[in-house]
């Protein structure tokens, strides 16, 4: 996890070469300025080996691309074409540690002068000159032959290091939009809204259901896109988010905003006109809360987590109001369950990202008030048990629900307790992954225990109100 020269590279070559350079740096200027030149097969093999080790050891695979960032492509004209040839000679600027930029900068300067002096095409003389200074490294490499096939990740990482034209390729757009709109998160949001719709004590209207899910999905896409639009430099600096479309320059900021508007306007309009104004209002409110409150607050105060929990709680309420047309205690209960769920989910996630959050300037409980982070996660996990028990009281579900949901609620509370007690990465990770399956499971159980409507009179009234 720590960016140290000695421990970072677990590969044999890496450690030996780096140690050699570290020892030689103060003494030999030439060694300090030498560039390690790796031929096409080797950098990806070497780095692939690193990948496997890192993925095994680390939860957040952040070092993956750090190694790649070292590579400084040499010649300009060659790189205008994205072809394999340019990877033939990859120059790696060996930076010893960021504390000593004096060491690294001369290397940059040297590479610059070399780029100016030498031809645009890599010459054999250059190669030989470089090789001479790192002959020991080369021989070491020969001693340990690795047979590696370049993995997809390594290939992607290599392509990522090249200069690319900012030109939108229409075939890539669906994938770009999916990542811009955080499709997986949107799917989860729509699921919670659908659950809210299904739990409402009214006859199920499939068309209305479909329209409200679509509207909610579009609103969620908008909110996510605007969030990414606001956070480009921060996302670039955090490992979890550095492959987002705007960070990579796959589309322009204007394009992202246009996409957001193209999703948001029809989405909210659909909810307002085809469903009901209350749902439309809630959708617009949620977009506003997420983009204009939560996103800026992330960098100003820890209260962002509570605002974010409200943002997560609104979709099931929207689903319910879409079905019934009014805010009822049942809707608020479902919202309450989602609200409480957000805390174990987010607190556990943020626990293992403390370094990235701190460096990026994000004010999260896990960094500034770790004790509170753990307490709040525990408190709300236990609160889920209470809220599940409240469901039959409000006639949302039968009494079976608190009973059959007790095992999973107890399990997440148990994990939250261990997170509170131990506060280590492992427990945080377990709590986070548990929260991912706990929520759909809970909603499913609630659905199966939904309170059946008994009177035909009751059935007639809601259908009349939904028809009007």
């Amino acid at each position, binding site marked *: 996890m720590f960016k140290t020269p000695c421990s970072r590279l677990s590969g044999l070559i890496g450690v030996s070469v780096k140690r050699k350079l570290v020892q030689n740096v103060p003494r030999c200027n030439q060694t300090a300025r030498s560039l390690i030149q790796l031929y096409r097969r080797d950098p990806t093999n070497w780095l692939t080996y690193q990948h496997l080790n890192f993925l095994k050891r680390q939860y957040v695979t952040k070092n993956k691309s750090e190694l790649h960032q070292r590579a400084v492509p040499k010649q300009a004209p060659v790189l205008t074409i994205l072809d394999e040839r340019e990877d033939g000679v990859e120059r790696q600027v060996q930076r010893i540690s960021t*504390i000593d930029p004096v060491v690294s900068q001369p290397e940059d300067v040297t590479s610059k002068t070399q780029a100016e002096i030498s031809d645009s095409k890599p010459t054999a003389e250059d190669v030989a000159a470089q090789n001479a200074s790192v002959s020991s490294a080369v021989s070491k490499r020969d001693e340990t032959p690795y047979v590696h096939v370049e993995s997809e990740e390594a290939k992607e990482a290599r392509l990522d290091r090249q*200069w690319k034209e900012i030109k939108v390729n229409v075939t890539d757009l669906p994938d770009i939009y999916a990542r811009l709109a955080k499709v997986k998160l949107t799917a989860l949001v729509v699921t919670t809204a659908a659950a809210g719709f299904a739990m409402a004590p009214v006859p199920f209207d499939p068309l209305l259901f479909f329209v409200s899910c679509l509207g909610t999905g579009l609103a969620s896409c908008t909110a996510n896109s605007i969030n990414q639009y606001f956070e480009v430099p921060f996302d670039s600096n955090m490992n979890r988010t550095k492959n987002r479309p705007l960070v990579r320059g796959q589309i322009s900021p204007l394009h992202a905003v246009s996409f957001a508007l193209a999703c948001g306007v029809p989405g909210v309009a659909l909810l307002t006109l085809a469903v009901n104004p209350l749902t439309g209002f809630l959708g617009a409110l949620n977009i506003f809360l997420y983009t204009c409150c939560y996103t800026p607050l992330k960098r100003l105060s820890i209260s962002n987590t509570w605002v974010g929990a409200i943002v997560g709680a609104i979709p099931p309420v929207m689903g319910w109001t879409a079905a019934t047309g009014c805010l009822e205690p049942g809707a608020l209960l479902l919202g309450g369950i989602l609200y409480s769920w957000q805390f174990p989910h987010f607190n556990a996630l943020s626990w293992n990202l403390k370094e990235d959050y701190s460096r990026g300037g994000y004010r999260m409980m896990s960094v500034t008030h770790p004790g509170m982070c753990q307490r709040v996660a525990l408190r709300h996990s236990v609160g889920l048990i209470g809220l599940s028990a409240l469901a039959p009281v409000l006639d949302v579900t039968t009494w079976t629900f608190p009973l059959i949901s007790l095992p999973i609620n107890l399990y997440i509370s148990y994990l939250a307790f261990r997170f509170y007690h131990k506060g280590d990465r492992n427990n945080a990770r377990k709590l986070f992954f548990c929260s991912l399956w706990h929520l759909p499971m809970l909603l499913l159980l609630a659905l199966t225990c939904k309170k059946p409507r008994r009177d035909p009179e009751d059935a007639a009234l809601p259908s009349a109100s939904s028809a009007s």
Partner: protein
Amino acid sequence: MLWGDVDITKRSIFRPEATSTHDWIGPPNPLSNLRPIVYHVPENETELEKRLRHLRQDTEDWNHDFWTKQNVMFTKEKDAFIFSQLNAKGLSVCDEQGRRRALNAEEMAVFYKSFLDTNRVRHADYNREWYRRNFTITLLMARVALNNMWKTVTDRHSRKKSSTPTT
């Protein structure tokens, strides 16, 4: 910005020629993690386009400066913190196998919190400025795009007008 006797804001001057019709975006800079962009200068660049390009380039440089300083400062302070903590414990920086000693999560949390607290105002100022610039750039881009669309439409219209009398 100088660090020692070297300008740390100087990035590698390697860049592709902006000869094509599009901008180019490069790999993330090792210090700031931001990707540099080489902007394409069209032949009949209007005032608006020029303003946009300058603003984008300026914002890119300003961002790069901030994040370079941020990342370098963070790493430096982190290592200083680790070093002082290890010293307080009476441990050396590297253990028997020569690997750097690491502090556990709780100890590091103290540093992360203090880093955020000391830089609170700086971060808030950066935020405000970044939002302002982002909005301005997007608005300008929208204006440029609309202008270009309008020009294409009027060009096509005038071409049609000038071509029909001859047929």
